Each structure stands twice: as C-alpha cells, then as structure tokens.
C-alpha cells in the first residue's frame, strides 16, 4: 500500500482502525518529499522532526479513534500563514529571520482536528503572481511537466498535492491563487465565500479579497478540509457568524434539475482551443446528468481585471507598509529611518511586489484617488450586481478556471500585463465575495496538461458547488490521473 497517494477519506478509515499509524503516514510523505522535491521545489521549509513528533502525539493520544476529522493526516501550509514557532517568509527576503509568535485561526482549527502540519509550501512573493516564479526561494515546477509553472500564487501547495507530496494543502486566493494552480496542476481547489474562513494569521495581500482555502485530491476531501477551516472568529472583524454545515452531506446528491449558468463573457476568443473544448464537454456532461443549462451574461466581466488590479494593489500598498525593518524581518542600515526604510524595502521586496506597491500607492495618491481607486470600488459594485442578478437565474455558474493550461517558466515574466490577464476568469469571484471551486475536467494532448473547470456559487453556497463538483467528478475519471514523476 502506498500511503502518500491516499486521500484524506481513505487514510482516515485506516487510521481509525489502526491499520496504519500517523507516524507511518507522515514518514511516507517525508520520504516522498525527500525523493521528489529537489526537482519540484514545492516546499520551502520543512521540519521533519517536528512533523514526526506531531504524528507520534496523535498516535499516542488515539486522536484518530476519537473521530477527529484530520487525525494523523499530513497537511502542507502555504508560507503566507503564521504557525507559532515557525518561520513565515511569504517567499520574501524581507521576512528573513522572522519567527511567528502565534498561530493563525486556521492553524488552530487544523491542530484541533488532529492534522499533522507538514511544512511550508512555495508561492509567489506575498501571493503576488500567477506562476510561483515570483518567489525569493526559487521556482516551483509543475508535476505534469517540469518545464512549466504550477500556476500561482499557491503553486507550491498545488504541486505538493498533485505530486503526492502532501495528502492535502492550504492555500490562499485573492484573485484566483487557489483555483488557477489547482487547475494547472490537476487537483481540487476551493475559494470560500469572503468571511467564511478567518483571515487572522494570514499575511494580508488585499484584505477585502483574501480568503484561505483547501487543495485536495478529490471533492470529498475538499468538503472535509473546508469543514475544518471554516468558522466564525472573533479576531477577524470580517468573519461571518454563520454555522458551519457538514459539507460532506452535500455530496452524493444528484444535479438533476439544478440550473447551471453559462456566462457568455467567459467563452471568448483568447481561450485555448483544448481548454474551451474540455469545458464545453464538462457542461454537456452536467447536462447529461440532468442539470439544466442556462445561458446568461455577466456584462461587467471585461472590467474585472482593471478593477482587481487597482483595488488589490491599493490595499497591498498599505498592507505591506509594515515591512520596514523596525520590529521584525530584514533590516538594511541607513543613517535615518527614511533611508533605512528605502534600503530595507528596496532590498527585501522582489520586482513584482515593488511594481504593485508603486501602482497601488499611485492609485491612492493625492489627485488620483477618485479617478482610480474610488472608480474601481464603484465598478466593483457593478460586478457584484452582475452576479446577484445571474444567481436569480441559476444555482451555479460554470466557466473555465484559466484560459490556458500551464505555461512555460519564464514565458510571461517580462510582460506583467499578460500575466495579469491569466487571472481573467477567477478574479471576479473575489471581487464579488462569492465562492468558487476548480476541479479537473480534462487534459491537453501535447503535452498532457490538466485543465480545470470552475464552478462558482452564491455567498455561502459552498454546499451547492461541492454538490455539483462531486456529481461531475463521480461521473468522470480525470481526478484519478496522476503525473508521471
């Protein structure tokens, strides 16, 4: 039996019946990482002893038999989330040496559920990017083709799950950073409704858009892991006090009679031919399962990229101001504080982060606020209204997750605008604050690369998107395919 290829629900059954110990599972994953990660670079920090010690504690206390939902399951954590006593670099030199003195809310939830925190996964610096190339610690590779990128910003988490270097992983999604890499690596990734998962302990990129969510090998695992991450947190004022359902109860239900919305703005020129065909095929599959297809329009879609990049960079310019060399992280000496700030930030941030800080600062600066930031916030309202109207006519909206499959490393690095456009299908979900999931729905032929299907749902409609995703997954076999590593 290969332990590292198992899903959460498969492992859980064996751990409960003591067929296998948490230590054995963790060891299997550490072995897999040791064998593979030199070429994949999904992880940027790992403490083997600590991971094994956590697993042994789970075995000792019999947490698996107590029915804790993740007892003994090794989970990888994106390096943007604080874990007490561990570094949290956000893939940036500016946080070199920083040791988190506290656990993020989701980390407390994971510990409570008995998860083994496996290690920290690579990402674009401060989650700014769509390829994981903007990491200060090297580029993560796509498990399906090592020449290619895994998507981003949570590329390390996606690659780790797709390559069986983790049973599941945690990522964050500000404009598609969970769904896009999940699509490009061929795994399941879900961005919860804004306010569903506490952001406390998540290093902020764009506060009004960020959400933490799961990467898993299948939809059932996604439902299990989401159930652990979700919940109300008094330490996050944007967290919503709404009871967390048992998401696994949404699974196994038919889609018969459900209305699946197809927005015409998402089926446009510029989308890769094979991607478009795979998504069309998936829609037909849903139809054949009894779903009703509803053509609809999200008319402000074409403004989403502009709105997103103004709002996200403006918020980021303030969120990243705290990295100044005074209290933690990197410091480059200067004769006065201003000089110290400029040198520290100049040396600590990579080019994409600098570019976005400049754009965001500019969009907020005197004389430009109304023309850029305020206008973007108003356009955001129009985008939200598009979705409100659309969801009067349908239960879920189905689109491609990304216009292309994984591209080659270096291909878009010199053209930030082209890179930004690769998020065109995902970022409206964040602007509207709704939920979305990406699941495998096919492959390109030469080379063989995964294609993702995005299912969007209403605010707090996670059960509905999981239900549709599960029905589709159970009727297909895409999720069972594994990269040849």
């Amino acid at each position, binding site marked *: 039996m290969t332990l590292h290829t198992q899903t959460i629900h498969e492992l859980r059954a064996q751990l409960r019946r003591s067929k296998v110990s948490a230590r054995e599972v963790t060891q299997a994953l550490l072995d897999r990482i040791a064998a593979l990660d030199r070429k994949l670079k999904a992880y940027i920090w790992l403490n083997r002893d600590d991971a094994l010690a956590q697993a042994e504690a789970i075995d000792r206390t019999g947490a698996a038999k107590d029915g804790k939902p993740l007892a003994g399951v090794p989970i990888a954590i994106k390096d943007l989330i604080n874990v007490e006593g561990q570094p949290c670099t956000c893939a940036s030199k500016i946080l070199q040496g920083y040791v988190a003195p506290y656990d993020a809310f989701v980390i407390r939830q994971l510990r409570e559920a008995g998860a083994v925190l496996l290690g920290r996964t690579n990402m674009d610096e401060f989650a700014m990017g769509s390829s994981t190339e903007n990491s200060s610690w090297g580029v993560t590779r796509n498990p399906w083709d090592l020449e290619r990128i895994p998507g981003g910003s949570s590329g390390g988490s996606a690659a780790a799950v797709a390559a069986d270097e983790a049973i599941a992983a945690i990522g964050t999604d500000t404009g598609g950073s969970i769904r896009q890499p999940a699509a490009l690596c061929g795994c399941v990734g879900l961005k919860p409704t804004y306010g569903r998962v506490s952001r406390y302990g998540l290093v902020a990129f764009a506060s009004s*858009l960020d959400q933490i969510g799961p990467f898993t090998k299948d939809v059932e695992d996604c439902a299990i892991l989401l159930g652990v991450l979700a919940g109300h947190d008094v330490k996050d004022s944007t967290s919503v006090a709404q009871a967390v359902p048992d998401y696994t109860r949404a699974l196994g239900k038919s889609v018969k009679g459900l209305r699946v919305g197809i927005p015409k703005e998402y089926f446009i020129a510029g989308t890769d031919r094979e991607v478009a065909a795979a998504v069309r095929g998936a829609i037909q599959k849903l139809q054949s399962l009894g779903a009703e297809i509803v053509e609809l329009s999200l008319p402000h879609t074409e403004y989403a990229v502009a709105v997103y990049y103004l709002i996200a960079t403006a918020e980021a310019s303030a969120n990243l101001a705290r990295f100044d060399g005074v209290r933690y992280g990197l410091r480059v000496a200067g004769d006065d504080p201003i000089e110290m700030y400029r040198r520290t930030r100049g040396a600590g941030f990579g080019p994409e982060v600098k570019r976005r800080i400049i754009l965001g600062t500019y969009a907020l600066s005197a004389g430009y606020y109304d023309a850029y930031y305020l206008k973007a916030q108003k356009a955001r*309202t129009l985008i939200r209204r598009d979705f409100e109207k659309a969801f009067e006519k349908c239960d879920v909206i189905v689109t491609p997750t990304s216009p292309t499959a994984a591209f080659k490393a270096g291909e878009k690095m010199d053209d930030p605008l082209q890179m930004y456009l690769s998020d065109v299908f995902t970022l409206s979900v964040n602007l509207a604050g709704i939920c979305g999931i990406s699941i495998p729905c096919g492959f390109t032929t030469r080379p063989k690369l995964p294609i993702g299907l995005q299912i969007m749902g209403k605010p707090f409609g996670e059960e509905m998107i999981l239900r549709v995703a599960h029905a589709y997954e159970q009727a297909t076999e895409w999720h069972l395919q594994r990269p040849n590593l």
Partner: protein
Amino acid sequence: MSEKTSDIDISYVAYLARLGLTEAEAAQFSAQLKDILKAVEKLNELDVTNVEPTAHAVPLTNVLRKDEVQPSIASADVMRNAPQQARGLFIVPKIVEQG
C-alpha cells in the same frame, strides 16, 4: 484620467512608499506601469455616477468587542524578532523629528 497617466512621477511615488528603486527598476516600472494604466483606462467607459462604492465583500456592521484585557505576548517572543534592540526597546536610526 487619460491626460494624467502619461506622467507618473515614479520617484515621488517610490518616495511615498519608502521604496528604494534602482535606476533600471525605475525605468522598467515606468514603462510597464504606463501599459497597465492604459489598460485600466478601460474603466472610463463606465458611468458610475450613482453607484455606491464597495469597500467590503460582506455587509456586516457593528463588529465590536467587549473592553476586556487579554494577555499580551511574552517579551522574549517580541524581542526575538527585533533587528536591533536595547533595554526592551526597538532601536532605530536616530529619528529626526518631522511630526
């Protein structure tokens, strides 16, 4: 907006953001930002006269906490991360009073 995008004062913006840029970076960003801002001008097509701005993705109000003291974090945990410290203080280059 269009007449303004042509003249981003990149050194002023970098100063506001306390961001040291090399000359090469400043030149590269200027060119790239010009492109990005041109793309952003698409928003000019929209009439948003009577549209309320969206600042939050969820419509919550009055998220307040009781005035109760919670334990602070251990001084050792705080100071472990300090790039420079002395006598329990974070040390910085001398502040030239600016207000």
